[in-house]
Every structure is written in C-alpha cells, then in structure tokens.
C-alpha cells in the first residue's frame, strides 16, 4: 500500500474512534466538522508532501551533486558504522594525529647507510630524507660512487597518507598541487619504517628515490583510493602540466564510490511521505544506486573499477578535468578498456589497440599477470574472478558479493561472515558437502580439505605478503609450466617435486589422461626449491611467502627450512623476497633462533647475519626423510646441486605493479 493509502487508513481509523467522542461534546454536526477539519488538515498536508515527492531516477547522474558520507549517517547509521570500520574509508587521509600510523618521535631509518629522520615540527609531521637530486647523481655515478659528495638531505612535510592496513605511504604536497610519494613508508604489521624499494618488489638499487621519483598521487592513487576524483591538471602554454587542482568528493573510499552521487537522494528524502512511499513500495529508491538491485555484471563492475585492470577510453573522458565519469550501475567497458597483460595496457594507453584486437599474452616480465593470464598482484581480483569457470559458467549466479560484503563483513578482507570456510563454495557446489574427503583426498579437518587451498591458492603478491588468487580453477601441471605461476599443490607440499604432484593429480577422477613431460629436475627436486633457485623474482616472492603458511608448514615439515632458506637468501637481490624468507624462519623458529637479520641491511651485514643463522641451523641437520630435497648424507643441503640450480636462474630486473 502507498504512503497516502496508509495515511488515509490510519486517519480513518482515528476518525472512527474520536468522531463519536467529538460528537458527544460538540454536538453531532459541529463535532463532525471539527473532526473532519483536524483530520483533513493532517491528510491534506501529507497528500501535498506525497505529491511533491520525485520518484524517477535523475535524468543525468553527471549533474547530481555529491554528498559527504556524514550526511548518510543520519538515516543509515548501521551502514555508516560498518563502513566506518573499514580500511576502504581510511585509504587516503590527511596527515593528522588520528590517521598517522608511523613513528614520528624522532625515529631514524637507515637504508644502505643513508639516514632518514621522522619528527614533529609543531603540528606538522616531517620526513628529513635524502635529496632526490643527490640520489640521482649517486645512481648515475655507478662504480664511481666514491667521487660523489656526501649525501644531502631535504625536509618534507607529510601532508597526506595512503593506506592504513598493511603499509602507510607518506605524501608531500608541492606548491603546484602535486602530491609526491616520499621514499620511506611505514610497514604497519612490522611497526617499522621501510624504504619503498623494500616495500615493493624491486631489486636492490643505488637510487634512493627510484620508486618514488615518478610517483605522483594526482596521476595514479587519486582514482582508486578516493571518491569522486577529478585530476584537473593545469597546462602551461606549451601544453605541459604545470599545476594540479585535483579534487575529490571525499578522501578514501566512501559511500558514493559504490552508491553514486547522493546529493539528490539526500534532498529528496527530507520528505517523509516519499520515504514512507518507498518503504511500502519496496521498489527501491531510484535517486541512489543500490548495488544489490543491479545485474551481476553491473554490480561487479563497481568493484572492478578499482579491483580490475583498466585503461581509460579517452573519448569517454573529459580530457580537461580528467574526472572519472564512472557512476555505479554504468557499463564500465563504455569508459575503460579491460587489459589482460601489460603489453595490452601499453597498447590501449597509446591508442594503438582496440578492445576487439586479439589478446596479447603476458611476457615473462609482466608485472601484473602470470604467463597464463592469472593476475599476480592485488587490485586485479575482478580479472581473476572473470577468468574462472565458476563465473563464466555460473550464468550470473556468482558475483563479488557471493563471498564479500562491504558492510557487516570483517574489515580485514571484507568477507561475509561464514565465507572463510567451505560454505563459500557450498553455496553452489553443495554436493561436495557430503563427499568432501572423497573429493579432496585430504583429512576433513586439514587445510587440504578447504576448497580455497587448492582452487584459490596464494599466487598473488603485494604489500609485502601473498594473497589468494581470485581465479578459481583446478590446479594443473600445464598451468605452471612456462607461466612462472607456482602450482597450488606445491605451495603447501613444498618438499615435493612437480613430478610427484603430477602423479598425485592423476588419481583424481577428473584428471586428464595426458601425462605432461617434465625435466629431470622437475621430476626429482622439490618444486619450491626449483622455483626459489631458478625462478624470477615474481615466482620467488610467491613461493617464499608460502613458507610462512601454517598449512605448508604442516604438509612439508619445517626442519629443512633453515638450512635451505638461509643459503638461498644469500643470493637474493630482492628485499621483498628476503623479508618473506626471514618471516618464514621467524614463524618456525622464533626470534631467538632466527634472528637477527635485517632484510634491508647493507650487503656485508646481511651476509654476516645469514652465515650466522646458517651455522645455527646446520648444527641441527635434517633427520626426516625428504625424497625430493637435495641433502647430503649428513642431512645438510647439497651445495653442488644448489649451485647448479642457481646458475640456471632467470633473473631479469622486474617489478610487480601493485
């Protein structure tokens, strides 16, 4: 029933009760008139309100004003509160005491002998670090570094922050409105300052500002880490960007990122008759976007805007303001290209490629995708999901919201309560509930019987840790041959070879009859060791990350970690790999046995520390039986085999574009 209908019914009810009372006091006629006048005044006022209520969607979302999240709180207190808890909200913040996570109490960070100091100056947070020009001259000097004068330092006020969950980056605002990323950031989990070269996957470098020199917030972070972004570059007469007047509707990912601009919704819903009408009709309010009322593709594209690989279609954007034209509910592909490799990304960016062109597969140094197209870093979860058979064959059954929720979920991964278990998959694959161990061939209470252990393994790296792949797939040997992507089974069975995995997988009823041909090393040597010794940095960082996982420690045993990991880290030139390797040793042995080791320390110091650790671990040789680990009869790693494998290492300079 409509709001007006309800009102009339209620007033009629009241009239029936009070009319005889009024009549007895005022006389029949007069009582009737007075009663009718009072109730008519109420009914009329309500009818006028109801009539003035607009119900259609705004004709153009582009003209709808933005409304801050605080204005949503008045009516949607629960949703506001649940959003307020999320790391989405705090993705970008101003540098104020409630937002700053780093230690600015005169803390000092030393990277390769170069000092950075963090302190307060009045209310301001200040980072005194290496001067970028000095860093450049030092990097250019190369071998002649001794001829470079002593380091110069520069002071930067920290104005804005990006991140509040894993890492927190510090931004400095230049007078022209450009926000630059400072070269040292805070690792929240470890509570320590870390050089950007250690925080992102990149090889050791002499260039202190390498990862920050071209990092402009207005160009990149602005779009996904804020709500309603407009870059607003100002160009000089030569067409060069001389200034930024970038604006956002709100810093961080606020209500409007998923629900669209809310100004009209707020304005219209000051009218109580409209709200009651909506409440009764249950059709939803056309003045705001409710993702749950959208089709699955449109709903998922809200997430894909930031969790997908996109290049803007310049013809769909206003090139002056460079305002993101996306409004939730729009077809995202109308204003962006989806890319599946960095080569495709470059083609779209240069406008030399169309969406209908044949795919360009990822190269071996692709910083976002494994060779088979599986995303290898975060913020590409949509791409992974879209490649999954569950999504493609699900005919609209599966969406991001099948497992994730933006409101009542755990802020840590935004998972719907209960979705950390097999219940997530049982939503569609309920038949496995009864025959779980028959399918998994692992004990029911073991990690091997958790669907996502095998179908969504930790094959993704970012933020100094590994994450689950969102490409839900059956693990195959072919998927790991020549793609760089570690095999799901061997990310737990670290001590087993790829050949062992192939033979085990052959026992599954759905396994293909094809028996992939493997090299002798792949047959005989632990796949994890092979990847750590021979693989590129992308593979190494994912595999070494697996050593910290409780499931892997349980499946592969841990007594061999120390002797092997310390030897392999000696040759490691990527700080992120060293960090995760040491994290694995700490997880198994604790600080007393696995420390000290500073993954960002100077090479000589690191080597000394690793040698000390190695001696400690070698004193307790491996006693268990490990068929695929190259061990000497004394239970120590076979140096000759390790050396041979290390000589086969493919190690181009690469980075993962988080």
């Amino acid at each position, binding site marked *: 029933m409509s*709001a007006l209908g309800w009102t009339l019914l209620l007033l009629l009810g009241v009239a029936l009760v*009070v009319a005889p*009372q*009024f009549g007895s006091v005022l006389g029949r006629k007069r009582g009737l008139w007075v009663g009718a006048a009072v*109730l008519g005044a109420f009914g009329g006022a309500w009818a006028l309100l109801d009539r003035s209520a607009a119900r259609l969607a705004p004709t153009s979302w582009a003209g709808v004003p933005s409304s801050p999240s605080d204005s949503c709180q008045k*009516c949607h207190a*629960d949703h506001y509160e649940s959003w307020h808890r999320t790391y989405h909200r705090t993705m970008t913040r101003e540098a104020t005491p409630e937002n700053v996570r780093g230690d600015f109490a005169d803390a000092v960070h030393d990277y390769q002998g170069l000092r950075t100091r963090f302190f307060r100056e009045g209310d301001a947070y200040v980072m005194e670090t290496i001067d970028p020009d000095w860093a450049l001259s030092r990097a250019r000097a190369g071998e002649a570094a001794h001829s470079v004068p002593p380091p110069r330092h520069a002071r930067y006020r920290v104005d804005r922050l990006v991140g509040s969950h894993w890492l927190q980056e510090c931004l400095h605002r230049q007078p022209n409105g450009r926000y630059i990323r400072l070269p040292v950031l805070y690792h929240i989990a470890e509570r320590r300052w870390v050089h950007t070269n250690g925080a992102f996957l990149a090889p050791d470098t002499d260039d202190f500002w390498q990862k920050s020199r071209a990092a402009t917030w207005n160009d990149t972070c602005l779009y996904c880490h804020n709500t309603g972004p407009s870059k607003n570059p100002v160009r000089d007469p030569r067409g060069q960007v001389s200034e930024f007047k970038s604006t956002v509707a709100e810093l961080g990912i606020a209500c409007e990122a998923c629900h669209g601009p809310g100004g009209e919704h707020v304005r219209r819903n000051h009218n109580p008759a409209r*709200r009651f009408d909506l*409440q009764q009709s249950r059709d939803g309010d056309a003045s705001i976007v409710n993702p749950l009322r959208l089709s699955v593709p449109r709903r998922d594209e809200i997430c894909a805007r930031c969790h997908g690989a996109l290049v803007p279609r310049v013809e769909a954007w206003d090139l002056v303001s460079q305002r993101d034209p996306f409004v939730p509910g729009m077809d995202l592909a109308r204003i962006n290209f989806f890319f599946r490799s960095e080569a495709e990304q470059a083609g779209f960016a240069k406008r030399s490629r169309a969406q209908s062109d044949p795919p360009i597969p990822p190269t071996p140094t692709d910083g976002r995708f494994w060779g088979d197209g599986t995303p290898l870093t975060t913020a590409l979860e949509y791409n992974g999901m879209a490649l999954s058979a569950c999504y493609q064959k699900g005919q609209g059954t599966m969406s991001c919201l099948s497992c994730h929720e933006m409101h009542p979920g755990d802020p840590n991964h935004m998972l719907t309560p209960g979705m950390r278990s097999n219940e997530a998959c049982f939503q569609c694959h309920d038949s496995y509930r009864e025959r779980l161990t028959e399918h998994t061939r692992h004990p029911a209470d073991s990690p091997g019987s958790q669907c996502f252990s095998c179908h969504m393994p930790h094959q993704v790296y970012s933020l100094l840790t590994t994450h689950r792949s969102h490409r839900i797939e059956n693990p195959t040997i072919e998927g790991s041959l020549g793609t760089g992507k570690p095999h799901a089974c061997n990310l737990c069975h670290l001590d087993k070879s790829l050949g062992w995995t192939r033979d085990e997988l052959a026992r599954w009823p759905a396994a293909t009859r094809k028996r992939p041909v493997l090299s002798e090393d792949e047959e005989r040597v632990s796949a994890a060791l092979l990847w750590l010794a021979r693989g590129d940095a992308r593979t190494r960082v994912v595999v070494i990350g697996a050593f910290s996982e409780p499931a892997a420690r349980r499946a592969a045993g841990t007594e061999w970690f120390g002797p092997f990991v310390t030897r392999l880290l000696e040759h490691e030139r990527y700080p992120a790999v060293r960090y995760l390797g040491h994290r694995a040793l700490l997880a198994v042995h604790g600080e007393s046995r696995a420390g000290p080791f500073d993954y960002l320390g100077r090479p000589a110091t690191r080597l000394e520390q690793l040698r000390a650790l190695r001696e400690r671990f070698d004193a307790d040789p491996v006693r268990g039986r490990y068929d695929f680990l190259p061990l000497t009869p004394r239970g120590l790693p076979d140096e000759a085999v390790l050396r041979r494998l290390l000589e086969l290492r493919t190690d181009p300079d690469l980075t993962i574009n988080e």
Partner: protein
Amino acid sequence: MSDAQPDLRRRLAHRHHLIGWCGLLVFLSLGIGLETLHGLKLGFYLDPEHRLRRLLWTLAHAHGTLLAVVNIAFAAGLTQFGRWNPRALRLASILLVDALVLLPLGFFLGGIGHTEVDPSPWVLLVPVGAAFLLISVAMIAWSAARPIAGDSGPRSEPPPGP
C-alpha cells in the same frame, strides 16, 4: 461564562484519576518489559539493526508514563482550579485521554516493521496524538488562568460563631 457543574468536574476527575493510574500501570510494566529485554539481551531489541525499534519503544514507554502522570495531575487539579465551560472541559478531557493512547501506541507500533531509516507507518498516529495533546494542554492552560466562577480571590477565615 458559565462554569462547569461541580459534579461534572468530579466525574471527569474520577475518570482521569482512574485512567492515569491504569496508564501508569501499563507503561511502567512496559518499562519493566524493556529492561527485561536488556537483561535477556534479546537481539530483536538490542541488535544494531534494531536501533530504531529500541528508540521508539523507549519513547512509547516514556511518553505513556509521562502522559499518565499528566492525567493524574489533571484529575487532582480539576475540582479545585480553573474555570471551565462544560463542553470545553469534556473536549479537553477526551483529547487528553486520546493523546495518552495515540502517542505511545504510535511509537510502539512504529517500532514493529521498521526499516533502518524510518519507523513503520503506524508512527503516523504520533502526530495526531501530539496535536490532540497540544490542544488539550492549551485548553487546560487557558482555563487555569481564570478563577473558578464566584471565586474572587483568597478567602479569609469565617468569623467565629456566636
């Protein structure tokens, strides 16, 4: 202007006295009921998504209790103060009783079937009850400003008899 008959005042005073105490019984019981819901930590009352229900039921309890006390106060003063036209007195009395019913009932039923944003449509009883209360209170205030007919001010003690 004629004043209301003393027996009408007594009759209405008795009615409001009775209704007021009965109202107190009902709405204090509601208060105890709400405290019990707190004690038992029942989700349909305490869960964050029922914040509005909690507010509305608390308002129902508070308004009901207060209006019951107002009815008792009206009964207590009716035989002693104010100058009333009988028709106006009966109207004020009816409106005061209606307000005691409509206001808390609107709040209470508004908390059943509510959304995150708004109460259920039953809350529309509240403005009707509020209007009745307002009119009634205005009439009582108006009458209270005028002395009872024949009353010319404070009486002096009668002279002692012979």
